């Protein structure tokens, strides 16, 4: 270690006042056996994900975007258990939505994550270990997904705002002399395009729910899920409980 690398440069050399065990040890022969550089060592390596690799083609799984759906028991604290898991294991999460399902006492959590394949596998397995989690699965690329966005823009050009809102199939929720608030739904690409289009009016505030999704066709969204048949439908009047929020309400 050179002086420049010294992590605590202000400390005086304690050698004179402390028992100098380092000096003693440097003289000691240590345990018998060939030194590290004299030992054979295999050529092979693993990558940082623990996968054996051909050193010539060092490949690691690149992060990709994945949508994970989890059916959970709607018990107190379930959302904090899920978010706590995501945070303490340092999973990269882009959005998380929660809402009730047709089965009383069950909620669906939809998470969009940006992780490598082994990371996505870990998220699913760690989620599945949480007691309130009933089933977890990754959605296919062809899944249907949507997000709801509320946009508040300046109201100087109501006609133009209305035209853009129509163009993206949105609805005007509030229109005043100074601001107009519109609602948009759609997949991520559509939402991003719409936001770009509204930029010209000056976006004052924005609120997004994050993506929520279901599998396409009659494929089940999470493994083992029996659509709509495994219990009484959740009525609209049902109290969702303290731990979940509905992603959006019909205006």
């Amino acid at each position: 270690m050179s002086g420049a690398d010294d992590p605590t440069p202000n400390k005086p050399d304690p050698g004179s006042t402390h028992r100098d065990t380092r000096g003693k040890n440097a003289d000691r022969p240590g345990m018998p056996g060939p030194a590290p550089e004299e030992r054979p060592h295999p050529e092979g390596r693993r990558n940082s994900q623990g996968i054996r690799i051909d050193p010539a083609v060092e490949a690691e799984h690149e992060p990709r975007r994945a949508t994970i759906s989890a059916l959970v028991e709607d018990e107190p604290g379930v959302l904090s258990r899920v978010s706590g898991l995501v945070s303490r294991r340092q999973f990269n999460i882009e959005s998380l939505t929660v809402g009730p399902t047709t089965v009383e006492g069950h909620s669906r959590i939809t998470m969009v994550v940006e992780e490598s394949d082994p990371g996505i596998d870990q998220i699913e397995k760690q989620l599945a270990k949480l007691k309130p989690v009933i089933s977890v699965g990754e959605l296919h690329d062809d899944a249907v997904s949507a997000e709801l966005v509320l946009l508040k823009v300046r109201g100087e050009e109501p006609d133009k705002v209305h035209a853009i809102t129509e163009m993206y199939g949105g609805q005007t929720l509030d229109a005043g002399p100074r601001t107009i608030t519109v609602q948009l739904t759609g997949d991520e690409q559509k939402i991003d395009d719409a936001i770009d289009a509204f930029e010209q009016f000056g976006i004052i505030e924005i609120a997004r729910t994050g993506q929520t999704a279901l599998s396409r066709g009659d494929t089940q969204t999470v493994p083992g899920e029996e659509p709509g048949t495994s219990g009484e439908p959740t009525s609209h009047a049902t109290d969702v409980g303290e731990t979940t929020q509905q992603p959006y309400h019909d205006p």
Partner: protein
Amino acid sequence: MTTRDEPTDSEETAAATGSADAGEPTHEPPSDAATDGGTAAAEADAAEETTEAAATRTPTTGAESVIAALEAAGAETAFGVQGGAIMPVYDALYASSVHHVTMAHEQGAAHAADAYGVVSGETGVCLATSGPGATNLVTGIADASMDSDALLALTGQVPTELVGNDAFQETDTIGVTAPVTKHNYFASGTDTVGDTVGEAFAYAETGRPGPTLVDLPKDVTLGETDRTPKPPEPPAGAEVDPEADPDAVERAARVIEDAERPLCLFGGGVIKSDAADQACRFAHDHGIPVTTTMPGIGSFPENDPLSLSWAGMHGTGYANMAITHTDCLIAVGTRFDDRLTGGIETFAPEAEVIHIDIDPAEISKNVHADHPLIGDAGSVLEQLIAAIDDDPDAEAWRDRCADWKEEYPMTYAMPEDEPLKPQFVVEAFDEATDDDTIVTTGVGQHQMWAAQFWTYTEPRTWVSSHGLGTMGYGVPAAVGARLAADTAGDTDRDVVCFDGDGSFLMTIQELSVAVREDLDITFAVLNNEYIGMVRQWQDAFFEGRHMASEYEWMPEFDKLAEAFGAKGWAVSEYDAVADTIEAALAYDGPSVIDFRIDPAENVYPMVPSGGANGKFALSEEQL
């Protein structure tokens, strides 16, 4: 403890008044059939008679329901510290068959319960009050979580209506302990609290073991109920299929048959699954050398010719050579901790990995598993034994492993001009005790010497803090281990705690418990007046600056032991070692030997953090 058998039936009061929460299931009549189901398994044991009697007694309060659930689950011992919010539960313990051991500190209660569980193979139980009681448990719960030990923590909580008000001794125990428990429960109703406690007890030992916690608001435990708790059962879906996919087993069997350099790596899961017999048979039947992880110590006899002892940062040179050169690693019940693997890039770099684990989330978490076999260690090993037709042709490999044992012997020098060597003390203890002796440790250099220079031959004899590395684990763990052995009737079994001076000072107050409970434990303090492992790293990596690692002054532990009411000795000469050990082991009660060891002694071999296992250093200059 004489008060435990007093009856409480006279305390029975009228039916519940306003304590049942809305939304709870309706009251059910006490079910004898249900209670029988919970205790039938242990009827042979005479001690269970009281358990059964107690479990069939109808509780009158939530607290009695909590204790009835513990009794129905077969809990015989609990460790804890009293306090305001847990008082109703303690009051219910007054008439219980559960033997309660009052610890000096809640951390000690958690560690003692953890060690009790490790030795007995059952869920350990600890109790604490709300606020500081609960937060003091956290270290012990986190320790149990990292080492996958079955532990149930019961914590008092302020009354439900005060929760969230920052009431006296209120802590969000559920929030604080969520990251370090398998699951935790906030008891929400007097009628269901017993069911919850039973479920938490069972869940702790179901599948991959781990700690659970039930937070018990005082109104819930004080409230009245007449419901007998349901028999303890894990939550739906928690049970795991013990057998692995047969096709995957067949594929793994072919890989093992074709291997030239096969190696077993037995982890703590082998011990938790009580699979030491299967592990032994697997290695012997097919002539496969064995390494273990540190928590796996005791899963395979270290005096067996196939044993290479344990691998990892301070594991043997031969274990680390074998794990570096194997072409087929059969890893059982291990999570590939970084202290085992060193740098992941150089870990078993040419091995096809067959990974047996009960927790699917451990598969390919750190090291990619070419052949994951998900199931119980014992069951899957049986499947593998049955599936392997031809032994691998591994004679040359076995010879090579034997050569490494010759090349890198675990020795130490004893020059006349240097103080007492700690390795000598460990070996002398090993020699003076039987194979079934239980060793507990704190964390640091002494722990490594106790692991390296003691020859472990039986499971559940090595009780230590691995994943969390909790200094201070040794003393309370010895208390728990002693009680587990005594409860099982093994009063002649020795319990030896190796501790460092730093670790010892962190939980020394639990000596008072050992004295009060008259526990036959021998504490061996390997005293170098340093946080020795930190000092070793400072010498190697921080140019010898002993910042906050040198104590310079330590109490005289022999005299301190006497002040506690234990027997104490101080030893600094080789000549006195054997005789003092003999006297301490012969002493019927807790005794402490303060071994004044060489403060300059270091632990080797050593794989530096993130280094290659095969490049372990044998001396400081090789680091």
